[in-house]
């Protein structure tokens, strides 16, 4: 029994931290947020050349081996620096689905996706606002030849404007004991009938609504078995949820540094505010929740990588992380008070990103429900 990272993972964490601190400075993050793409294709390409897009995928699928643990230390560094890249959408979820589907069309797209020359993104959420197969209602009509016709809208689709393809989850059958009734389809973002609408949002994240007006894709575009798409997607989303949790932990870690640094130097009532126990409590809340998130991430990632039964570990990690994503910014604002509310000051950048990450890939409520499912099983 040993929950420590291996030395090569510690080294990778150090490399990733230095990379993102150099290449994703806070002023660059501000510029990217205001840009059309919402991220830096150059940084993403550099990540590709470091092998970080191939990471976590087996060599047989064109990946570089390694696992969620290796990726998690990169995500912590991305969270610390708020580096905006479509890695989770494209290189983790997108590539994960393509690799699992294994169809010729999927394999053909996998190579440019892992090279960073193509970006793909999942289109899952609808106005149900839930997460999980029950929330998917967008009607997909399967034709007798296996083609699929899509009608309706997906929302909160990240980086859709940069994507060559969308992975669309459609309701093709009612849920049954045997299958989710969901079919996954690879849809070209530029296909006729696909319309993208930017959704301005608190996080400054490139989120889109994608509307499908009688969009038809051929049978070669179906990923996995018809009506059993969620079964293919679910393990990929588990990995992604752990990585989102790692990213939150990185951001919380940075908020802790900012808060402690501010409390050490800001004086009121004749002494630095870090001497006040009320302020010390606020800082220790961030430290505790950040640390618990890191332990739960490490545990879930370790189980996933070792192929051991994961049980509730993924949902424990994301439930804790979603809590941390709310609590750490709230405490940081309390320490900083008025200045945290000002755009020139960096705290608000973390607060706004955390609003997205908290609710992404299953919110606290969703993952707590999954925990209880496992407890009661």
């Amino acid at each position, binding site marked *: *029994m*040993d*929950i*420590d*990272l*291996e030395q090569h*993972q510690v080294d990778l964490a150090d490399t990733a931290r230095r990379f993102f601190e150099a290449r994703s400075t806070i002023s660059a993050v501000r510029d990217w947020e205001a840009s059309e793409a919402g991220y830096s294709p150059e940084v993403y390409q550099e990540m590709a050349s470091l092998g970080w897009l191939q990471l976590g995928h087996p060599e047989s699928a064109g990946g570089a081996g390694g696992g969620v*643990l290796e990726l998690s230390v990169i995500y912590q560094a991305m969270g610390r620096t708020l580096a905006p890249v479509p890695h989770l959408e494209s290189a983790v979820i997108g590539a994960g689905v393509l690799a699992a589907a294994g169809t010729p069309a999927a394999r053909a797209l996998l190579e440019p996706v892992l090279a960073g020359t193509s970006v793909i993104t999942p289109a899952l959420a609808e106005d149900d606002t839930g997460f999980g197969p029950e929330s998917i209602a967008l009607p997909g009509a399967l034709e007798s030849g296996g083609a699929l016709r899509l009608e309706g809208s997906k929302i909160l689709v990240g980086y859709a404007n940069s994507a060559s393809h969308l992975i669309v989850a459609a309701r093709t059958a009612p849920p049954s004991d045997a299958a989710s009734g969901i079919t996954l389809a690879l849809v070209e973002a530029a296909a006729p009938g696909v319309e993208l609408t930017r959704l301005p949002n608190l996080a400054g994240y490139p989120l889109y609504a994608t509307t499908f007006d009688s969009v038809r894709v051929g049978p070669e575009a179906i990923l996995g078995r018809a009506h059993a798409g969620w079964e293919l997607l679910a393990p990929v989303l588990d990995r992604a949820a752990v990585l989102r949790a790692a990213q939150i932990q990185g951001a919380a870690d940075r908020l*802790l540094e900012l808060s*402690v640094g501010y*409390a*050490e130097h800001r004086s009121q009532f004749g002494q*630095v505010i*870090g*001497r006040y*126990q009320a*302020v*010390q*409590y606020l*800082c*220790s809340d961030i*430290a*505790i929740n950040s*640390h*618990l998130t890191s*332990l*739960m991430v*490490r*545990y879930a990632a*370790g*189980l996933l*990588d*070792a192929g*051991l039964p994961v049980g*509730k570990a993924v949902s*424990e990690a994301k*439930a*804790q992380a979603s809590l941390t994503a709310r609590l750490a910014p709230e405490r940081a604002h309390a320490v900083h008070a008025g200045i945290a509310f000002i755009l020139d000051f960096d705290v608000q950048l973390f607060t706004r990103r955390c609003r997205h990450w908290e609710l992404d890939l299953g919110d606290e*409520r969703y993952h*707590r*429900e999954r*925990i*209880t499912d496992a*407890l*009661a099983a």
Partner: protein
Amino acid sequence: MELQLTAAQNEWREELRDFLDTELPPQWERSTEWCEDEDFWAFAIAFTRKVSAKGWIGLTWPEEYGGLARQPIDQLIFSEEFTYRDAPVVNTIGWGLAAGALLAGGTEAQKQKFLPPIQRTDVLWAEGYTEPEAGSDLASLTTSAVRDGDEWVITGQKTFTTWGSHADMLYCAARTDPDAPRHRGITIFGVPIDQPGVSFGPLFNIGGGRQNHTFLEGARVPHENMIGTEGRAWDLIMGGFYGGNIGASYMDAQQKLDKIVAWCKTARRNGKLLIEDAVVRDQLAEMDLLVQAERLLTYESLSNIQSRRPPAFAGAIGAVVGKEAMARFAELTNLVVGRVGQLAVGSRWAPIDVASGGPEAWFRTSIRNHAGGTPQVKRMVLATRGLGLPR
């Protein structure tokens, strides 16, 4: 990273379970902390001596002091299984606190003298740290020890001495140099209790157990019972709270959660199964998260011990989380179990499987809140020594 136990470690767990199945009565749900019943105490002593005879007290100690020189992970597995079953192992001050300090800072002669009787559960120890005016601020203690030839003479008062009236030896912190800086004049002694200078006054606790005031009026201690270096006990005190042992208190919460989940599958409120109640389900998940947080903090401690590395954040996160989580766990227990949760263990109308959930969880929370330092003090340690904020 290695999250699987070896075959030998799994066998060790099975061996412990077999032992507990054999030695504990069925439906065992009692803690020595809440009970002064003499029959129960006699059972706990006899049980602990069986554990001693197995060599499992002192499991990780070097063999020359009666130990089995086993690995820290074996100690953790032991703690997990014994805690899950609420096994009444007494003399925790002996094999935890005193033995930990002796192994860390005792002389060879002291180890030879004190450790084997602790291993055999022949000599029972009680803790003598806290004083009426020295609680959280332990370094302000005023009990004095004055050298008199080959002996020391101890005068002062200790308090909250659990099991004091059952113990043979007091693990006593006393001031040996009143002129030294306050952290530098304290020394630890093993004070024999059976002498005219030592007496007790009972403090009955809300759980039905007893702590004590301990009065030291010219109590005499042979110099050879001084533990560690004169005037340097503070390092032992800070490093030695149950040092050398890895506890698994989360298994106490785990067994309660397991019982509560099972009960929620059959119990109804307002005609509806509790396990189908959305609020209850959320509360159960929060309880699981509290258990899991403590479990992973313990795994982290194990890894720290295995790689001989000091804990992050001055080790304070584990202490804060353990204490604060337990209070929340007890609160959630009450919310889930509802109004029958206030009934005492043994009541016909108490839900039998979770009877210990209400009162028990709260009693334990109340103890854990202060034992070894309050969460408020641990938060101060976290902020100042862990995060570097000014004192």
